[in-house]
Protein backbone atom coordinates (compact mmCIF):
# COMPACT_ATOMS: atom_id res chain seq x y z
CA UNK A 1 0.00 0.00 0.00
CA UNK A 2 1.27 3.41 -0.86
CA UNK A 3 0.05 6.60 0.67
CA UNK A 4 0.71 9.88 -1.06
CA UNK A 5 1.52 12.54 1.47
CA UNK A 6 1.03 16.24 1.12
CA UNK A 7 2.68 19.05 3.01
CA UNK A 8 -0.53 19.65 4.93
CA UNK A 9 -0.98 16.07 6.09
CA UNK A 10 2.70 15.95 7.01
CA UNK A 11 2.30 19.04 9.17
CA UNK A 12 -0.74 17.47 10.78
CA UNK A 13 1.16 14.25 11.50
CA UNK A 14 4.03 16.16 13.03
CA UNK A 15 1.75 18.29 15.18
CA UNK A 16 -0.08 15.22 16.44
CA UNK A 17 3.26 13.50 17.09
CA UNK A 18 4.56 16.43 19.12
CA UNK A 19 1.32 16.72 21.13
CA UNK A 20 1.49 13.00 21.92
CA UNK A 21 5.07 13.41 23.12
CA UNK A 22 4.00 16.27 25.40
CA UNK A 23 1.11 14.22 26.82
CA UNK A 24 3.10 11.08 27.67
CA UNK A 25 4.10 12.09 31.22
CA UNK A 26 0.53 12.83 32.45
CA UNK A 27 -0.70 9.74 30.62
CA UNK A 28 1.68 7.43 32.47
CA UNK A 29 1.42 9.28 35.78
CA UNK A 30 -0.83 6.63 37.28
CA UNK A 31 1.38 3.66 36.46
CA UNK A 32 3.72 2.35 39.13
CA UNK A 33 6.57 2.27 36.60
CA UNK A 34 6.32 5.94 35.67
CA UNK A 35 9.77 6.97 36.89
CA UNK A 36 11.42 4.07 35.15
CA UNK A 37 9.51 4.75 31.93
CA UNK A 38 10.37 8.44 32.08
CA UNK A 39 14.01 7.60 32.65
CA UNK A 40 14.04 5.42 29.53
CA UNK A 41 12.31 8.10 27.48
CA UNK A 42 14.67 10.86 28.70
CA UNK A 43 17.69 8.76 27.77
CA UNK A 44 16.08 7.88 24.45
CA UNK A 45 15.57 11.56 23.64
CA UNK A 46 19.15 12.49 24.58
CA UNK A 47 20.35 9.59 22.45
CA UNK A 48 18.05 10.69 19.63
CA UNK A 49 19.86 14.06 19.53
CA UNK A 50 23.20 12.23 19.63
CA UNK A 51 22.03 9.88 16.87
CA UNK A 52 20.84 12.84 14.81
CA UNK A 53 24.28 14.39 15.23
CA UNK A 54 25.87 11.26 13.76
CA UNK A 55 23.18 11.13 11.07
CA UNK A 56 23.97 14.65 9.84
CA UNK A 57 27.64 13.81 9.42
CA UNK A 58 27.33 10.20 8.24
CA UNK A 59 23.79 9.85 6.89
CA UNK A 60 23.64 13.14 5.00
CA UNK A 61 27.25 14.17 4.36
CA UNK A 62 28.49 10.57 4.05
CA UNK A 63 31.33 10.83 6.56
CA UNK A 64 30.96 7.67 8.62
CA UNK A 65 32.51 8.44 11.98
CA UNK A 66 33.37 5.58 14.32
CA UNK A 67 34.50 7.90 17.08
CA UNK A 68 31.41 9.98 17.57
CA UNK A 69 31.58 9.56 21.34
CA UNK A 70 34.39 12.11 21.33
CA UNK A 71 31.88 14.89 20.57
CA UNK A 72 29.36 13.70 23.16
CA UNK A 73 32.11 13.16 25.72
CA UNK A 74 33.90 16.50 25.37
CA UNK A 75 30.50 18.23 25.52
CA UNK A 76 29.59 16.31 28.66
CA UNK A 77 32.95 17.10 30.25
CA UNK A 78 32.76 20.83 29.44
CA UNK A 79 29.45 21.13 31.23
CA UNK A 80 30.26 18.79 34.13
CA UNK A 81 33.58 20.47 34.94
CA UNK A 82 32.11 23.98 34.85
CA UNK A 83 29.26 22.97 37.14
CA UNK A 84 31.54 21.01 39.47
CA UNK A 85 34.40 23.50 39.82
CA UNK A 86 32.68 26.83 39.18
CA UNK A 87 29.06 26.05 40.12
CA UNK A 88 27.95 27.59 36.88
CA UNK A 89 24.35 27.63 35.78
CA UNK A 90 23.82 24.35 33.86
CA UNK A 91 21.94 26.21 31.10
CA UNK A 92 25.01 28.34 30.43
CA UNK A 93 27.30 25.33 30.53
CA UNK A 94 25.34 23.82 27.63
CA UNK A 95 26.77 26.62 25.49
CA UNK A 96 30.22 25.54 26.64
CA UNK A 97 29.28 21.94 25.79
CA UNK A 98 28.43 22.91 22.25
CA UNK A 99 31.53 25.10 21.94
CA UNK A 100 33.86 22.42 23.31
CA UNK A 101 32.42 19.77 21.00
CA UNK A 102 32.71 22.15 18.05
CA UNK A 103 36.38 22.84 18.81
CA UNK A 104 36.97 19.08 19.10
CA UNK A 105 35.02 18.42 15.92
CA UNK A 106 36.91 21.07 13.97
CA UNK A 107 40.22 19.58 15.09
CA UNK A 108 38.98 16.12 14.14
CA UNK A 109 37.79 17.36 10.77
CA UNK A 110 40.98 19.29 10.04
CA UNK A 111 43.08 16.17 10.44
CA UNK A 112 40.72 13.52 9.06
CA UNK A 113 38.72 15.09 6.23
CA UNK A 114 41.58 14.56 3.80
CA UNK A 115 40.85 10.86 4.23
CA UNK A 116 38.04 8.90 2.63
CA UNK A 117 35.85 5.98 3.58
CA UNK A 118 37.50 3.35 5.75
CA UNK A 119 40.55 5.50 6.36
CA UNK A 120 38.38 8.33 7.64
CA UNK A 121 36.43 5.93 9.85
CA UNK A 122 39.60 4.44 11.28
CA UNK A 123 41.09 7.87 11.94
CA UNK A 124 37.98 9.00 13.85
CA UNK A 125 38.18 5.86 15.98
CA UNK A 126 41.81 6.58 16.85
CA UNK A 127 41.22 10.29 17.43
CA UNK A 128 38.37 9.60 19.86
CA UNK A 129 40.45 7.12 21.83
CA UNK A 130 43.32 9.62 22.01
CA UNK A 131 41.01 12.27 23.44
CA UNK A 132 39.64 9.76 25.95
CA UNK A 133 43.16 8.92 27.09
CA UNK A 134 44.06 12.61 27.41
CA UNK A 135 41.00 13.22 29.59
CA UNK A 136 41.83 10.12 31.63
CA UNK A 137 45.46 11.18 32.14
CA UNK A 138 44.98 14.93 32.65
CA UNK A 139 43.59 14.46 36.11
CA UNK A 140 44.54 17.95 37.35
CA UNK A 141 41.84 19.41 35.13
CA UNK A 142 39.49 16.52 34.48
CA UNK A 143 39.73 14.54 37.75
CA UNK A 144 40.94 11.62 35.62
CA UNK A 145 39.58 8.18 36.35
CA UNK A 146 37.65 9.46 39.36
CA UNK A 147 35.12 11.05 37.05
CA UNK A 148 33.08 14.19 37.67
CA UNK A 149 30.03 14.31 39.91
CA UNK A 150 27.56 16.93 38.70
CA UNK A 151 25.52 18.42 41.54
CA UNK A 152 21.81 18.86 40.99
CA UNK A 153 21.10 22.53 40.25
CA UNK A 154 18.72 24.69 42.25
CA UNK A 155 15.15 24.82 40.96
CA UNK A 156 14.61 27.52 38.34
CA UNK A 157 11.55 29.62 37.71
CA UNK A 158 11.02 29.85 33.97
CA UNK A 159 8.04 31.81 32.67
CA UNK A 160 6.12 30.83 35.76
CA UNK A 161 7.01 27.14 35.54
CA UNK A 162 9.14 25.85 38.36
CA UNK A 163 11.78 23.55 36.92
CA UNK A 164 12.90 21.18 39.62
CA UNK A 165 15.96 19.33 38.39
CA UNK A 166 15.37 16.49 40.82
CA UNK A 167 12.17 15.65 39.00
CA UNK A 168 12.12 13.35 36.02
CA UNK A 169 9.06 15.17 34.79
CA UNK A 170 11.11 18.36 34.45
CA UNK A 171 13.87 16.46 32.68
CA UNK A 172 11.40 14.87 30.33
CA UNK A 173 10.22 18.26 29.09
CA UNK A 174 13.72 19.73 28.98
CA UNK A 175 15.04 16.93 26.81
CA UNK A 176 11.87 16.91 24.71
CA UNK A 177 12.25 20.61 23.89
CA UNK A 178 15.93 20.17 22.99
CA UNK A 179 15.11 17.18 20.83
CA UNK A 180 12.35 18.99 18.96
CA UNK A 181 14.63 21.98 18.33
CA UNK A 182 17.45 19.71 17.11
CA UNK A 183 15.14 17.79 14.79
CA UNK A 184 13.53 20.94 13.46
CA UNK A 185 16.95 22.44 12.68
CA UNK A 186 17.98 19.19 10.99
CA UNK A 187 14.84 19.28 8.89
CA UNK A 188 15.52 22.87 7.82
CA UNK A 189 19.19 22.20 7.13
CA UNK A 190 18.65 19.06 5.10
CA UNK A 191 15.93 20.73 3.00
CA UNK A 192 18.20 23.69 2.21
CA UNK A 193 20.88 24.12 -0.42
CA UNK A 194 23.33 22.68 2.09
CA UNK A 195 21.30 19.49 2.41
CA UNK A 196 21.62 19.00 -1.33
CA UNK A 197 25.33 19.72 -1.18
CA UNK A 198 25.87 17.31 1.74
CA UNK A 199 24.21 14.55 -0.25
CA UNK A 200 26.35 15.34 -3.30
CA UNK A 201 29.48 14.89 -1.17
CA UNK A 202 28.07 11.62 0.16
CA UNK A 203 27.27 10.31 -3.32
CA UNK A 204 30.50 11.25 -5.08
CA UNK A 205 32.95 13.65 -3.56
CA UNK A 206 35.06 14.06 -6.70
CA UNK A 207 32.04 14.77 -8.85
CA UNK A 208 30.90 17.38 -6.35
CA UNK A 209 34.34 18.98 -6.39
CA UNK A 210 34.34 19.09 -10.18
CA UNK A 211 31.14 21.13 -10.01
CA UNK A 212 32.90 23.67 -7.88
CA UNK A 213 31.76 22.47 -4.45
CA UNK A 214 34.37 23.11 -1.79
CA UNK A 215 33.95 19.68 -0.27
CA UNK A 216 36.33 20.23 2.64
CA UNK A 217 34.40 23.29 3.76
CA UNK A 218 31.11 21.43 3.44
CA UNK A 219 32.33 18.51 5.49
CA UNK A 220 33.52 20.97 8.13
CA UNK A 221 30.07 22.58 8.12
CA UNK A 222 28.41 19.19 8.63
CA UNK A 223 30.91 18.53 11.43
CA UNK A 224 30.10 21.87 13.04
CA UNK A 225 26.36 21.20 13.23
CA UNK A 226 26.95 17.58 14.19
CA UNK A 227 29.34 18.59 16.98
CA UNK A 228 26.99 21.24 18.39
CA UNK A 229 24.19 18.65 18.64
CA UNK A 230 26.41 15.95 20.16
CA UNK A 231 27.94 18.44 22.60
CA UNK A 232 24.55 19.59 23.87
CA UNK A 233 23.39 15.96 24.12
CA UNK A 234 26.52 15.33 26.20
CA UNK A 235 25.86 18.35 28.44
CA UNK A 236 22.27 17.22 29.02
CA UNK A 237 23.44 13.68 29.72
CA UNK A 238 26.03 14.79 32.30
CA UNK A 239 23.54 16.99 34.16
CA UNK A 240 20.76 14.43 34.02
CA UNK A 241 22.86 11.46 35.14
CA UNK A 242 24.79 13.49 37.71
CA UNK A 243 28.09 11.71 37.09
CA UNK A 244 30.41 11.04 34.17
CA UNK A 245 33.75 9.30 33.86
CA UNK A 246 36.22 8.44 31.10
CA UNK A 247 35.74 4.66 31.35
CA UNK A 248 36.36 2.56 28.24
CA UNK A 249 33.57 0.16 29.20
CA UNK A 250 30.05 0.49 27.78
CA UNK A 251 28.12 3.34 29.37
CA UNK A 252 30.98 5.85 29.59
CA UNK A 253 30.46 9.12 27.69
CA UNK A 254 33.83 8.61 25.99
CA UNK A 255 33.48 4.88 25.50
CA UNK A 256 33.79 3.53 21.96
CA UNK A 257 30.58 1.60 22.69
CA UNK A 258 28.81 4.94 22.99
CA UNK A 259 30.14 5.82 19.54
CA UNK A 260 28.75 2.53 18.27
CA UNK A 261 25.37 3.40 19.78
CA UNK A 262 25.27 6.41 17.46
CA UNK A 263 25.80 4.05 14.50
CA UNK A 264 23.14 1.63 15.68
CA UNK A 265 20.64 4.46 16.21
CA UNK A 266 21.40 6.02 12.84
CA UNK A 267 21.46 2.82 10.80
CA UNK A 268 18.52 1.05 12.44
CA UNK A 269 16.41 4.21 12.35
CA UNK A 270 17.38 5.09 8.80
CA UNK A 271 20.45 6.99 7.65
CA UNK A 272 19.76 10.21 5.83
CA UNK A 273 16.24 10.57 7.22
CA UNK A 274 15.22 13.21 9.76
CA UNK A 275 12.88 10.99 11.81
CA UNK A 276 15.14 7.91 11.76
CA UNK A 277 17.22 8.72 14.86
CA UNK A 278 14.11 8.91 17.10
CA UNK A 279 13.06 5.43 15.98
CA UNK A 280 16.64 4.20 16.28
CA UNK A 281 17.10 5.53 19.78
CA UNK A 282 13.77 4.10 20.93
CA UNK A 283 15.01 0.75 19.66
CA UNK A 284 18.47 1.18 21.18
CA UNK A 285 17.40 2.47 24.58
CA UNK A 286 13.87 1.10 24.83
CA UNK A 287 14.39 -2.35 23.40
CA UNK A 288 17.83 -2.55 25.04
CA UNK A 289 16.27 -1.91 28.46
CA UNK A 290 13.37 -4.25 27.79
CA UNK A 291 15.68 -7.10 26.89
CA UNK A 292 17.91 -6.37 29.85
CA UNK A 293 14.95 -6.45 32.21
CA UNK A 294 13.39 -9.62 30.82
CA UNK A 295 16.16 -11.84 29.53
CA UNK A 296 19.26 -10.19 30.98
CA UNK A 297 19.30 -12.69 33.85
CA UNK A 298 21.70 -14.87 31.90
CA UNK A 299 24.67 -12.51 31.64
CA UNK A 300 25.09 -11.08 28.15
CA UNK A 301 22.11 -12.88 26.66
CA UNK A 302 20.21 -9.61 26.26
CA UNK A 303 23.13 -8.05 24.38
CA UNK A 304 23.32 -11.11 22.16
CA UNK A 305 19.60 -10.87 21.42
CA UNK A 306 19.84 -7.14 20.78
CA UNK A 307 22.70 -7.73 18.35
CA UNK A 308 20.69 -10.38 16.53
CA UNK A 309 17.73 -7.99 16.22
CA UNK A 310 19.98 -5.24 14.82
CA UNK A 311 21.42 -7.65 12.24
CA UNK A 312 17.92 -8.79 11.29
CA UNK A 313 16.70 -5.20 10.87
CA UNK A 314 19.67 -4.28 8.71
CA UNK A 315 19.21 -7.37 6.54
CA UNK A 316 15.48 -6.95 6.05
CA UNK A 317 15.37 -3.14 5.99
CA UNK A 318 18.68 -1.93 4.57
CA UNK A 319 17.47 1.68 4.59
CA UNK A 320 16.47 1.42 8.23
CA UNK A 321 13.05 1.34 9.87
CA UNK A 322 12.07 4.90 9.01
CA UNK A 323 13.80 4.66 5.65
CA UNK A 324 11.50 1.75 4.84
CA UNK A 325 8.34 3.45 6.07
CA UNK A 326 9.21 6.63 4.22
CA UNK A 327 10.04 4.85 0.96
CA UNK A 328 7.27 2.27 0.85
CA UNK A 329 4.38 3.88 2.67
CA UNK A 330 4.91 7.60 2.41
CA UNK A 331 6.74 7.74 -0.94
CA UNK A 332 9.62 9.72 0.39
CA UNK A 333 7.29 12.49 1.50
CA UNK A 334 8.56 12.97 5.03
CA UNK A 335 12.21 11.97 5.08
Amino acid sequence: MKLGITDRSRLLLETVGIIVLFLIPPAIYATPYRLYLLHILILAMIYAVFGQSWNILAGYAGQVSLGHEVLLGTGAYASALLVYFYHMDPWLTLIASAAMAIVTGMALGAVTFKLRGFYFALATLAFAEMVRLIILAWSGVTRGAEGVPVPVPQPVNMFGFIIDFKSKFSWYYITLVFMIIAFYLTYKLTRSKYGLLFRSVREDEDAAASLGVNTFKLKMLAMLVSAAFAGIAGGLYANYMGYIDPAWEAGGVLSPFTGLDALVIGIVGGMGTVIGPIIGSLVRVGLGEYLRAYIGVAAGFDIFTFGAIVVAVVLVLPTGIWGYIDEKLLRGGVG
Partner: protein
Amino acid sequence: MLDVSDIDVFYGDLQALWGVSLKVEKGEIVALVGSNGAGKTTTLRTISGLLHPRSGSVHFLDKRIDGIPPHKIVEEGVVQVPEGRRLFPQMTVKENLELGAYTKEAWEKRFDTIEWVYTLFPRLKEREKQLAGTMSGGERQMLAVGRALMSKPKLLMLDEPSLGLAPILVMQVFDAVKKIYEEGVSILLVEQNVQKALSIADRGYVLENGRIVLEDIGEGLLNNPHVKKAYLGI
Protein backbone atom coordinates in the same frame (compact mmCIF):
# COMPACT_ATOMS: atom_id res chain seq x y z
CA MET B 1 39.91 33.47 -23.74
CA LEU B 2 41.73 30.30 -22.59
CA ASP B 3 45.46 30.36 -23.01
CA VAL B 4 47.46 27.29 -22.00
CA SER B 5 51.10 28.12 -22.41
CA ASP B 6 53.95 25.63 -22.48
CA ILE B 7 52.85 23.44 -19.55
CA ASP B 8 54.76 20.46 -18.19
CA VAL B 9 52.64 18.20 -16.00
CA PHE B 10 53.86 15.27 -13.91
CA TYR B 11 52.24 12.38 -12.07
CA GLY B 12 54.85 11.97 -9.39
CA ASP B 13 58.10 11.50 -11.34
CA LEU B 14 56.33 10.55 -14.52
CA GLN B 15 56.03 13.37 -17.01
CA ALA B 16 52.63 13.30 -18.73
CA LEU B 17 52.63 16.58 -20.67
CA TRP B 18 55.61 18.16 -22.41
CA GLY B 19 55.33 21.86 -23.23
CA VAL B 20 51.67 21.74 -24.20
CA SER B 21 50.24 25.02 -25.48
CA LEU B 22 46.73 25.60 -26.76
CA LYS B 23 44.21 28.38 -27.09
CA VAL B 24 40.44 28.65 -27.16
CA GLU B 25 39.04 31.96 -28.42
CA LYS B 26 35.60 33.28 -27.53
CA GLY B 27 32.86 31.59 -29.53
CA GLU B 28 35.02 28.72 -30.73
CA ILE B 29 34.75 24.95 -30.61
CA VAL B 30 38.24 23.57 -30.27
CA ALA B 31 38.87 19.84 -30.47
CA LEU B 32 41.73 18.13 -28.70
CA VAL B 33 42.20 14.70 -30.21
CA GLY B 34 44.62 11.85 -29.73
CA SER B 35 44.74 8.21 -28.79
CA ASN B 36 44.43 6.66 -25.35
CA GLY B 37 47.09 7.87 -22.95
CA ALA B 38 48.14 10.80 -25.12
CA GLY B 39 47.42 13.24 -22.29
CA LYS B 40 44.03 14.65 -23.28
CA THR B 41 42.36 14.13 -19.92
CA THR B 42 45.51 15.27 -18.14
CA THR B 43 45.31 18.53 -20.07
CA LEU B 44 41.69 19.07 -19.03
CA ARG B 45 42.38 18.17 -15.43
CA THR B 46 45.18 20.71 -15.39
CA ILE B 47 42.94 23.45 -16.74
CA SER B 48 40.27 22.51 -14.14
CA GLY B 49 42.85 22.88 -11.39
CA LEU B 50 42.81 19.21 -10.35
CA LEU B 51 46.45 18.95 -11.44
CA HIS B 52 49.08 21.65 -11.30
CA PRO B 53 51.67 22.27 -14.02
CA ARG B 54 55.29 22.12 -12.87
CA SER B 55 56.12 24.82 -15.39
CA GLY B 56 54.19 26.94 -17.84
CA SER B 57 50.91 28.72 -17.15
CA VAL B 58 47.18 28.65 -17.73
CA HIS B 59 45.32 31.92 -18.23
CA PHE B 60 41.58 32.41 -18.54
CA LEU B 61 40.32 35.83 -19.60
CA ASP B 62 43.79 37.17 -18.84
CA LYS B 63 43.69 35.86 -15.30
CA ARG B 64 46.18 33.24 -14.26
CA ILE B 65 44.27 30.15 -13.06
CA ASP B 66 46.92 27.45 -12.61
CA GLY B 67 47.47 27.02 -8.90
CA ILE B 68 44.04 28.17 -7.77
CA PRO B 69 41.66 25.53 -6.39
CA PRO B 70 39.10 23.80 -8.68
CA HIS B 71 36.02 25.45 -7.17
CA LYS B 72 37.50 28.91 -7.82
CA ILE B 73 38.12 27.99 -11.43
CA VAL B 74 34.45 27.02 -11.77
CA GLU B 75 33.56 30.46 -10.42
CA GLU B 76 35.73 32.01 -13.13
CA GLY B 77 33.50 30.31 -15.70
CA VAL B 78 35.42 27.18 -16.71
CA VAL B 79 33.47 23.96 -16.23
CA GLN B 80 34.41 20.42 -17.13
CA VAL B 81 32.05 17.56 -17.89
CA PRO B 82 34.17 14.71 -16.62
CA GLU B 83 34.71 11.47 -18.49
CA GLY B 84 32.31 8.80 -17.28
CA ARG B 85 29.84 11.59 -16.46
CA ARG B 86 30.15 11.45 -12.68
CA LEU B 87 26.48 11.98 -11.99
CA PHE B 88 24.88 11.50 -8.59
CA PRO B 89 23.00 8.28 -9.35
CA GLN B 90 20.82 8.25 -6.23
CA MET B 91 19.62 11.80 -6.76
CA THR B 92 16.93 12.97 -9.15
CA VAL B 93 17.58 14.62 -12.51
CA LYS B 94 16.44 17.93 -11.09
CA GLU B 95 18.66 17.65 -8.01
CA ASN B 96 21.62 16.83 -10.23
CA LEU B 97 20.91 19.93 -12.29
CA GLU B 98 20.52 22.12 -9.19
CA LEU B 99 23.88 20.95 -7.96
CA GLY B 100 25.42 22.26 -11.16
CA ALA B 101 24.31 25.73 -10.11
CA TYR B 102 26.40 25.61 -6.98
CA THR B 103 28.10 28.99 -7.28
CA LYS B 104 26.25 31.78 -5.51
CA GLU B 105 25.45 33.74 -8.63
CA ALA B 106 24.22 30.69 -10.53
CA TRP B 107 22.16 29.46 -7.55
CA GLU B 108 20.00 32.58 -7.56
CA LYS B 109 19.18 32.12 -11.24
CA ARG B 110 18.87 28.34 -11.11
CA PHE B 111 15.18 28.11 -12.01
CA ASP B 112 15.66 30.18 -15.17
CA THR B 113 18.76 28.20 -16.07
CA ILE B 114 16.95 24.90 -15.59
CA GLU B 115 14.29 26.06 -18.05
CA TRP B 116 17.05 26.92 -20.53
CA VAL B 117 18.66 23.50 -20.09
CA TYR B 118 15.24 21.86 -20.55
CA THR B 119 14.80 23.64 -23.87
CA LEU B 120 18.17 22.27 -24.98
CA PHE B 121 17.39 18.77 -23.71
CA PRO B 122 13.59 18.30 -23.54
CA ARG B 123 14.15 14.70 -22.49
CA LEU B 124 15.53 15.88 -19.17
CA LYS B 125 12.30 17.70 -18.36
CA GLU B 126 10.35 14.49 -18.94
CA ARG B 127 12.68 12.70 -16.56
CA GLU B 128 12.87 15.49 -13.99
CA LYS B 129 11.91 13.38 -10.97
CA GLN B 130 13.67 10.18 -12.02
CA LEU B 131 16.85 9.03 -10.29
CA ALA B 132 19.85 9.77 -12.50
CA GLY B 133 21.18 6.23 -12.08
CA THR B 134 18.11 4.74 -13.73
CA MET B 135 18.47 6.58 -17.03
CA SER B 136 20.00 5.35 -20.29
CA GLY B 137 23.58 6.15 -21.26
CA GLY B 138 22.59 8.87 -23.69
CA GLU B 139 20.26 10.52 -21.20
CA ARG B 140 22.94 10.44 -18.56
CA GLN B 141 25.34 12.16 -20.93
CA MET B 142 22.71 14.84 -21.65
CA LEU B 143 22.28 15.28 -17.90
CA ALA B 144 26.02 15.60 -17.36
CA VAL B 145 26.24 18.29 -20.01
CA GLY B 146 23.07 19.97 -18.72
CA ARG B 147 24.45 19.99 -15.20
CA ALA B 148 27.66 21.62 -16.38
CA LEU B 149 25.61 24.28 -18.16
CA MET B 150 23.77 25.11 -14.92
CA SER B 151 26.71 27.18 -13.74
CA LYS B 152 26.41 29.33 -16.89
CA PRO B 153 29.98 28.63 -17.95
CA LYS B 154 31.90 30.77 -20.40
CA LEU B 155 34.01 27.77 -21.39
CA LEU B 156 32.66 24.23 -21.34
CA MET B 157 35.17 21.39 -21.44
CA LEU B 158 33.82 18.01 -22.51
CA ASP B 159 35.84 14.89 -21.83
CA GLU B 160 34.93 12.05 -24.21
CA PRO B 161 31.21 12.84 -24.40
CA SER B 162 30.64 10.05 -26.94
CA LEU B 163 32.44 7.37 -24.95
CA GLY B 164 30.44 4.17 -24.65
CA LEU B 165 27.42 5.49 -26.53
CA ALA B 166 25.60 3.86 -29.42
CA PRO B 167 26.15 5.66 -32.78
CA ILE B 168 22.69 7.24 -32.75
CA LEU B 169 23.34 8.68 -29.29
CA VAL B 170 26.75 9.92 -30.41
CA MET B 171 24.94 11.93 -33.07
CA GLN B 172 22.57 13.35 -30.46
CA VAL B 173 25.43 14.35 -28.21
CA PHE B 174 27.28 16.13 -31.01
CA ASP B 175 24.06 17.89 -32.01
CA ALA B 176 23.73 19.06 -28.42
CA VAL B 177 27.31 20.31 -28.40
CA LYS B 178 26.57 22.34 -31.51
CA LYS B 179 23.42 23.78 -29.94
CA ILE B 180 25.35 24.87 -26.88
CA TYR B 181 27.98 26.45 -29.09
CA GLU B 182 25.22 28.34 -30.92
CA GLU B 183 24.09 29.66 -27.51
CA GLY B 184 27.44 31.41 -27.23
CA VAL B 185 29.36 29.04 -24.94
CA SER B 186 32.93 28.33 -26.04
CA ILE B 187 33.82 24.64 -26.07
CA LEU B 188 36.95 22.60 -25.61
CA LEU B 189 36.15 19.11 -26.77
CA VAL B 190 38.31 16.10 -25.99
CA GLU B 191 37.51 13.09 -28.14
CA GLN B 192 38.73 9.78 -29.39
CA ASN B 193 36.09 10.00 -32.08
CA VAL B 194 38.42 12.09 -34.22
CA GLN B 195 36.23 12.23 -37.32
CA LYS B 196 33.18 13.57 -35.47
CA ALA B 197 35.11 15.95 -33.27
CA LEU B 198 37.08 17.57 -36.07
CA SER B 199 34.03 17.90 -38.30
CA ILE B 200 32.24 20.18 -35.81
CA ALA B 201 35.35 21.97 -34.50
CA ASP B 202 36.62 25.36 -35.65
CA ARG B 203 40.16 24.35 -34.81
CA GLY B 204 41.85 21.26 -33.50
CA TYR B 205 45.00 20.04 -31.83
CA VAL B 206 46.49 16.58 -32.06
CA LEU B 207 48.15 15.28 -28.92
CA GLU B 208 50.63 12.40 -29.05
CA ASN B 209 52.68 11.11 -26.13
CA GLY B 210 52.05 14.25 -24.13
CA ARG B 211 53.05 16.66 -26.90
CA ILE B 212 51.02 18.75 -29.33
CA VAL B 213 52.14 17.49 -32.74
CA LEU B 214 49.64 19.21 -35.04
CA GLU B 215 47.42 22.24 -34.96
CA ASP B 216 45.07 23.45 -37.71
CA ILE B 217 41.48 24.34 -38.52
CA GLY B 218 39.15 21.34 -38.17
CA GLU B 219 38.89 20.67 -41.86
CA GLY B 220 42.61 21.07 -42.32
CA LEU B 221 43.30 18.34 -39.79
CA LEU B 222 40.70 16.05 -41.35
CA ASN B 223 42.61 16.31 -44.62
CA ASN B 224 46.03 16.03 -43.04
CA PRO B 225 47.81 12.87 -44.28
CA HIS B 226 49.16 12.01 -40.81
CA VAL B 227 45.74 12.36 -39.16
CA LYS B 228 44.14 10.36 -41.95
CA LYS B 229 46.64 7.56 -41.58
CA ALA B 230 46.93 7.46 -37.78
CA TYR B 231 43.39 8.27 -36.65
CA LEU B 232 40.93 7.87 -39.48
CA GLY B 233 42.35 4.69 -40.98
CA ILE B 234 42.23 5.98 -44.56
